């Protein structure tokens, strides 16, 4: 796995780009900007669903979601750059594993939301509360994205991971 990722990185020029003087910090900046985009769109939608700032109809805030998807794509792209350039630093790092876990939960939560609750929530107007299950889903979503940011910080701060990993 590590070799396959490194080969991919070297054959596509990603490795040279990321090891250039500004490649890594530039990719990190784009990665964090993508997260801000995600929090500023999906996060605001979640906050409104949880019952904050009820002056905004939910359908209006939903118009911001495509920018959250854009932020997510920026994160996946830059995340691939990090992972393929230094796979040994990431694949066995419990912070990365936890980050992927929370992303998976957020993804499942989103599929459940669009499959079961989105239609009922779409009509929620000004000053109205959403369904309890929508509030719970919004809480899970927001908590997962905050956990993703925390795990992202853990990756670079607590290295090597054996000082704190619970399952290593």
């Amino acid at each position: 796995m590590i070799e396959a990722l490194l080969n991919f990185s070297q054959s596509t020029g990603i490795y040279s780009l990321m090891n250039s003087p500004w490649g890594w910090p530039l990719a990190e900046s784009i990665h964090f900007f993508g997260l801000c985009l995600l929090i500023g769109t999906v996060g605001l939608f979640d906050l409104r669903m949880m019952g904050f700032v009820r002056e905004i109809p939910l359908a209006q805030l939903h118009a911001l979601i495509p920018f959250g998807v854009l932020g997510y794509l920026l994160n996946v792209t830059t995340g691939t750059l990090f992972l393929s350039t230094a796979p040994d630093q990431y694949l066995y790092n419990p912070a990365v594993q936890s980050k992927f876990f929370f992303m998976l939960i957020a993804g499942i939560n989103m599929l459940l939301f669009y499959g079961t609750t989105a239609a009922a929530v779409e009509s929620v107007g000004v000053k109205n509360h959403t369904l309890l299950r929508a509030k719970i889903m919004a809480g899970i979503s927001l908590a997962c994205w905050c956990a993703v940011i925390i795990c992202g910080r853990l990756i670079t701060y607590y290295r090597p991971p054996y000082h704190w990993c619970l399952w290593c």
Partner: protein
Amino acid sequence: METLARLEETTLSIWLRESGPAFFGALTLHSLAMGFVVGINIAVALKLIGFVPRLEITAVARFFTFHWYGVAFIFISGIALLLAYPAKALTNPVFYFKLCALSIGLLISRHFQNKFAIQRKNTIDRRSIGLAYLCLALWIAVVTTGRFLAYTHTTLLASRFY
């Protein structure tokens, strides 16, 4: 440099630097708060530029109340990070650039909050659109310089010079 060396030898600075949870807590809080503050500003700027016509500006600007809580956390955690490694930031010109971009960005946020959330003006004039572009550029600069701080410092600890 001597002042910075003295500052980093205070009990608080040593604790912030050497206690794992204190430094990591400040770092995480800073990232989370930045995510919310930058995110809310991007959402407002996207609306003003015209990317989200369905969204009412007077409504989305109400999120600025949350935004200021985020700003408070940014300053608290930022001061903690600065106290932990004062020489690292204060001897780096990138830090001052970040501070300038952040200050101008916050002044624009205050202007938008006052105009759209408090006075509830619903019309978006050319000046607001121009400020929204500037706001977007400034927050990108804040995020980028924030990341580059970790790579551009020339001095980590001032005390090693004494």
